[in-house]
């Protein structure tokens, strides 16, 4: 039996990481061939994976802060 659409959204990371068994991979692909919705899900899932690393949650460090930390590190080196 082929995975359901719901199963497809459970397996997408394993599929992309190449961690599915040979037979499951085949079933996954067959489902993709037949299901436009799951193709769309997978395409957008991959898009998300490219997008997220570019989101940095960080504030810019202030110059002063950088110097302070850099000084501490430098002392540790000596």
């Amino acid at each position, binding site marked *: 039996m082929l995975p*359901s*659409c*719901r*199963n497809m*959204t*459970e397996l*997408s*990371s*394993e599929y992309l*990481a190449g*961690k599915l068994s040979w037979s499951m991979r085949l079933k996954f692909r067959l489902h993709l061939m037949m299901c436009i*919705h*799951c193709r*769309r*899900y997978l395409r*957008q*899932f991959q*898009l*998300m*994976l*490219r*997008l*997220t*690393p*570019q*989101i*940095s*949650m*960080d504030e810019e*460090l202030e110059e002063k802060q*950088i*110097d302070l*930390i*850099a*000084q*501490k*590190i*430098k002392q*540790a*080196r000596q």
Partner: protein
Amino acid sequence: MADEKLLISRVLAGEEEAFSDLVKQYHNGMLRVASAIVGSADADDVVQDAWIKAIRALENFEGRATLKTWLTTIVANTAKSHAKKHSRWLALEDLKSDERDDLGLERFTPNGHWLNPLKVWDLGSPEAAACSEQMHQALVETLETLSHAQRMVFILHELNGMEVESICNILEITPSNARVLLHRARNKLYAAIEAMI
């Protein structure tokens, strides 16, 4: 990689500006990892410890991993020791929960078909989308809603580029558990992006 080598040799030579460059480039990423593991209140101390360890070990850096990955490993291990010392190393309890790995029950019919067609994303390039203030905000907020374990795995892998196998060693979980946590986090992020479209 060539830039990394150059930066390292400048630091080893004790060049003043090299230390600032190092901090500028990597400090935030280390802070992010420390916060995810020990919480933001202790993160600064942990990162400072990690920097000192890293700088003392820098001569032994062999370049098998990127400098970013190497620093991430050091800060994650430092954070773990810190959490353990203060008895705050959580067992990753949500692995035992019955949360599912799919995109969300309400999207599917009882036999697992899509209830409604998926929305089509029109983001332009990921690069452009990532720059949008709104998108940024939504993703940061979603990260806060992840379980502690999901957030740690997601940040280590997706934002700091660490391999799942290395994450397992740090978090003391199995590879399959790490992948489950990562996948649940990803589907939540997916839903968050979709909600913005």
